[in-house]
C-alpha cells in the first residue's frame, strides 16, 4: 500500500485545524481525508476520516488518572502508539489515491522533549506513507527579527525530530496588510546582514556571530524558506501543495520521470 499526505504541526492556535479544513473544503485536484490526532480537540470543523478521540480522549484521561494536561496528553499519545492496530485498521479504510492530512496536537514537548511524534511518523512510514511535515508559524511572529528567529527555531526544533521532508508555512497571511514586510520575511533571510537593529541594539551586537550561525542553520535546513498561507487566496494553497507534491512525489510529478526512465531502459 502507498499513501501520500502531510503531518500538520505547529504551536497551539497556529491554524492547523483551519488549514486542514480549508484544504478539505476547496478543490485542489485530490480527495482529501483528514485524521484528527489531537486528543484534546474540542471542536472539529472538517469531516474526520479517523478521530483519535474515538480511541482515547484527554478529558477522560485527566479525570480518571488525575493527570495534568501535559501528562494526560503524553498518556493519550502513548496509548495510541501502543494500540497502533486500531489505527492500522482505520487506515485500511482509506483509499490508495486519497491524500491524508494529520491534524496534530500543538504541544512542543511531543516533538523535542519526548520523541513521541517521531515514533508515530515512523509507524506511518512503515504503513506505506510518503509524507512531509508542515509546520505552521503564525503571522504575528513577523513582528521583529528576534521574534521571527525565535519562531523559526521552534519550527526547526520540532521538524528536525521527525526526519521527514520539512516545510514551514506562515499562516494567517490574510491578516498582514504590509506586503513589503511580508516579502522581506519570506525571502531567504539573513538576519545578520540586513537586520534593522544591527547598529543600535546591544543584544544584536553582542550576539551577532551567534545569530549569524543560527540563522544559517535555519536556512540550510530549508526552514528559512517560508511558504505563505492566505486562506482567502487559493493560489497560495496551490503553491504550498505544489512544493510538497514535488517533495513527496505525489501525483503527476512522478509520471514524466517514470516515462523517461522507461525510455532510457528501452534504449539500453
Amino acid at each position, binding site marked *: 500500500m502507498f499513501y501520500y499526505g502531510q503531518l500538520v504541526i505547529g504551536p*497551539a492556535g497556529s491554524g492547523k485545524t483551519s488549514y486542514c479544513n480549508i484544504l478539505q473544503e476547496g478543490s485542489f485536484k485530490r480527495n482529501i481525508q483528514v485524521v484528527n490526532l489531537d486528543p484534546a480537540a474540542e471542536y472539529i470543523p472538517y469531516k474526520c476520516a479517523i478521530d483519535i478521540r474515538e480511541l482515547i480522549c484527554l478529558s477522560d484521561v485527566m479525570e480518571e488518572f488525575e493527570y495534568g494536561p501535559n501528562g494526560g496528553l503524553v498518556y493519550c499519545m502513548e496509548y495510541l502508539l501502543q494500540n497502533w492496530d486500531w489505527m492500522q485498521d482505520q487506515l485500511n479504510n482509506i483509499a490508495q489515491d486519497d491524500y491524508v492530512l494529520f491534524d496534530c496536537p500543538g504541544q512542543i514537548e511531543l516533538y523535542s*522533549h519526548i520523541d513521541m511524534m517521531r515514533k508515530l511518523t515512523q509507524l506511518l512510514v512503515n504503513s506505506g506513507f510518503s509524507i512531509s511535515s508542515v509546520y505552521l508559524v503564525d503571522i504575528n511572529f513577523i513582528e521583529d527579527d528576534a*521574534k521571527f528567529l525565535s519562531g523559526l*527555531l521552534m519550527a526547526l*526544533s520540532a521538524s*528536525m525530530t521527525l526526519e521527514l521532508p520539512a516545510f514551514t508555512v506562515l499562516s494567517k497571511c490574510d491578516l498582514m496588510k504590509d506586503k513589503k514586510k511580508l516579502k522581506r520575511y519570506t525571502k531567504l533571510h539573513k538576519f545578520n546582514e540586513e537586520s534593522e537593529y544591527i547598529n543600535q*541594539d546591544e543584544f544584536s551586537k553582542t550576539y551577532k556571530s551567534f545569530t549569524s550561525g543560527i540563522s544559517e*542553520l535555519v536556512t540550510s535546513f530549508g526552514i528559512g524558506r517560508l511558504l505563505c498561507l492566505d486562506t482567502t487566496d487559493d493560489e497560495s494553497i496551490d503553491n504550498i501543495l505544489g512544493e510538497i507534491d514535488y517533495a513527496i512525489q505525489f501525483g503527476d510529478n512522478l509520471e514524466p520521470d517514470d516515462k523517461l526512465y522507461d525510455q532510457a531502459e528501452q534504449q539500453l
Partner: protein
Amino acid sequence: MDIEFQIKENKVAILIIGMAGTGKTTFVQQLSKQLKNEKHTLINLDPAVYSLPYEPEEDIRKSINYKELMTKNKLGPNGAIMTALNLYSLQLNQLIEKIEKSDSNIQIIDTPGQIEVFTWSASGNLISQTLSMSMPTIIFYVIDIARCQNPNSFMSNLLFSCSIFYKFKLPMVIVFNKCDVADSKQPLEWLRNYDSFTEALKNKDTYLSTLSKQMVLTLEEFYNNFTVLEVSSLTGQGFEKINEVIATAKQEYMNITLVDIQKRMNDQKQKNYDKQINQITQKIQNL
C-alpha cells in the same frame, strides 16, 4: 524628558523556565538550599501545581483558584493556566513593590510546565518585561539530560532553548538537569567535543548528517555563548559555582540588557513604554 526608572542593582530575579517535567520545581528547591546563606525569595507562578516541595513566599495559588477557573469559565486546562497568569499579572505591581521593599537579594521564580503559555502569552511577556525593568533579570533554562540521548533530540532541545533566548532577550544559563542519571555522559560529551557529535551523526546516518557541519558550528557557538551548568537537582551535584554563574549572568544583564532598556526608554519613538504596558494590560483585561 526621560522616563525615570531605577534599577535595583543589588537584586536579581531568576526565571526558571523549561519543558514539562524537566525538573524546574526540584531545581528551585535545590537552588534555595544552595543559597541558604543569601536572602532569597521563592515565587511560584504555576497555578496548577498540586503540591510543592518548598514553601514559596509568593504563590499564584493564594489569589487564584485554578480548578474553579476551569469549572466556572468552562476552560480547558491550558486555557485556565493562561487565564490564571493573566489575572495574576494584573496584580504584578504589588509583587514588584514587595520585592523592592524587602531585603531579599535573589528572587527565584518557578513557572508552569506549559512552556508555551509562559513564553508566548501576553502575561508571560508582561511579567518578564516588568521584572527586567525593575531589577537584573536572568533566565535559567532547564533541560532534562535524560531526554537528550540521541543527536536528534539533543540538538532539538538546544535549538528550542535558542528560541527561548531570542524571545526573551535576557541573559540565559542552560541547566542540564538530572545528571545523576547514569547516561548523562554522552550528550555532555557532544556539547564539549564537537567531533564526537559529528561521529554520532555519521553512525546514525540520519538525514541530519547532511547538516552536521552546520550543526557543529552551531554547537560551538552555543558553547561559547552560554554558561552551561550540569547539575542534579535531586542530589545537589554541580551547584558549586552557582554564585559565580548568577553573578556573571547579572553582569551580562548590566552590560547588554540594561543598556538596551535605557536606550529604548530614551528613544522618542519607543518612549511609550507605559502606553505599551497599558495596552497589554488592557488586552488581558478584555480576555
